[in-house]
């Protein structure tokens, strides 16, 4: 009954309702409840957490090294006795360990490239949307121009020109993926900046950058979160696409795309070399897409696809 002591006006209503502490639910709590009701998203989140833990800690728990070649068991099928639970590839390397270590690279690329595109996209979009006018037109025209470039081909071109370095993969993918983010953030900012609370902040003499940082960006979080969850699988896909073509990460490093490519070479004699990394890659992409869908439904109930 502490609250009623502070605020006696509410008391009759609370008494009438038969509750003592009426707690309001913030939009974030609402969204959280909606998200928890979405079973596909919740299961996906659990599976994803499991895969991430497996990828991080799995290789430490398995006695095989990823580059150890077991000449007694080349292209051996999955079995418990040999100790290679998911089989080995053509030179006797354990598929499970290789897949888990490849997963580290795939997930890392997904995360880092998404962060790159997040930082550029939010900064660019919020600035263009907030200042508007000529600056906005110019900035968005630039986005339009870059947007029309055949992204995949330019990334391949970059790989050809600068060699296949993993940092370059992060940068190249991130450098193109921020465009969508910038467009979405700009649109949201445009509609936000005419709201009363922004006007109030401006009337109080808050500076432009402080308004962007303290009021605009926090209000963009919902959209951005949805978009980040949907960008991660896209980036993982692009990286595995490159690696599949032999233009991504190089031996001895590996990623799911490179492993699928290796597996496709040997699939007639050793189908497990194709199936194991494919399943990991697919399940990951599937989960991220479902989580992103769930978040979108939860955070923005208007826009359901």
């Amino acid at each position, binding site marked *: 009954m502490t609250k009623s002591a502070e605020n006696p006006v509410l008391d009759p209503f609370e008494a009438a309702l038969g509750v003592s502490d009426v707690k309001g639910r913030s939009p974030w709590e609402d969204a959280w409840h909606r998200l928890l009701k979405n079973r596909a998203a919740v299961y996906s989140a659990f599976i994803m957490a499991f895969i991430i833990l497996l990828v991080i800690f799995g290789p430490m728990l398995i006695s095989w090294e990823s580059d150890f070649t077991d000449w007694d068991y080349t292209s051996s099928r999955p079995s418990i006795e040999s100790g290679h639970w998911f089989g080995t590839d053509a030179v006797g390397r354990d598929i499970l360990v290789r897949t888990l270590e490849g997963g580290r690279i795939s997930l890392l690329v997904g995360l880092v490239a998404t962060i790159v595109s997040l930082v550029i996209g939010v900064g660019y979009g919020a600035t263009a949307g907030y200042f508007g006018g000529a600056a906005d*037109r110019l900035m*968005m025209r630039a986005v*339009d*121009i*870059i947007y*029309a*470039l*055949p*992204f*995949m*081909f*330019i990334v*391949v*071109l*970059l*790989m*050809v*020109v*600068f*060699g296949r370095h993993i940092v370059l993969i992060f940068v190249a993918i991130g450098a193109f993926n921020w465009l969508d983010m910038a467009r979405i953030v700009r649109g949201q900012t445009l509609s936000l900046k005419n709201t009363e609370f922004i006007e109030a902040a401006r009337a109080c003499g808050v500076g432009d950058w402080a308004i962007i940082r303290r009021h605009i960006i926090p209000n963009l979080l919902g959209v951005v979160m949805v978009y980040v969850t949907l960008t991660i*699988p896209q980036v993982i*896909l692009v990286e*595995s*696409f490159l690696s*599949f*073509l*032999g*233009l991504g990460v190089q031996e001895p490093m590996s990623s799911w*795309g490179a492993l*699928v*490519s290796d*597996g*496709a070479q040997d*699939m*007639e004699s050793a*189908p497990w070399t*194709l199936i194991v990394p*494919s399943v990991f*890659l*697919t399940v990951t*992409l*599937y989960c991220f*897409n*479902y989580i992103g*869908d769930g978040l979108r439904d939860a955070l923005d109930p208007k826009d*359901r*696809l």
Partner: protein
Amino acid sequence: MIQDSGMLKHSLQRLLGLIPTLLMLVTVAFFLIRVAPGGPFDSEKLLPPEVEANLSARYHLDEPVLQQYFRYVGQIAALDFGPSYHYKDWTVNELIAQSFPVSLTVGLSAMVLAFFVGTLLGIAAALRQNTRTDYSLMGFAMLGMSVPNFVIAPVLILLLAVYAGWLPAGGWDWSIAYMVLPVITLSLPAIAYIARLTRGSMIEVLNSNFIRTARAKGLPESTVIRRHALRPALLPVISFLGPATAAMISGSVVIERIFSIPGLGSYFVQGALNRDYTLVMGVVIFYGFLIIILNFLVDLVYAWLNPKIRYDEKR
């Protein structure tokens, strides 16, 4: 139609707006190749200096960079991509002319398949919204979006070609048998995406007032859908066709490689691995132009179909 003059003006403006994009594409491609380490003639054998000078003169590598750039832009404007660095005796134009028809055949078939199957599945799901049919169709659509085509392709080859032996595992001779697997694989992600788009917009349209009016007039449901709901529901699909083409072109690179199809994508990857700069650059620019122009056409069709669009509006 009063709108027509506005539309013409809008189209011309958009057409002019393409020029900076195209120029940017050519510039990026040109300077990327210039800063690339290693020239095209760094082969195992060291060439005598006279030969190297001759080669440089032949490919204009002895001129100042800026002059080379303007020469290149002029060349591209005349749609001449120059000689291939790797396939001697071939120009890039000849390589494109030889291989693009193959890619176009596969791509167009996949596009048509994706459009019809995708919209049909989307409409079916929308009409049975929140039933088991809807959920399973959308589950499959999510699967189609999530499974990369370089995973689907080997699996299909393994099942239908290697184990069942119904279809060839790869190769190309312009017959249907060689087209089935590549076309299906290439169209799956687009089918999934179009089905989801169609379902979403169809549900929205079916809940709108003019559909309620049409139903209230006593029209049979099939007429309501065909005559009234279909066109507005397909608008988002039309605008998706631009990005879909781009996605299909990059998808075709993988598909052609997996199925050993001698299309432009195969040459592109081979060129990238061989450091055949002129070929890679030529394909990037060719496909870039294609995507940019197709996007432009899709925008026009969209504007033409959508009664709500305003021409003076800046996006």
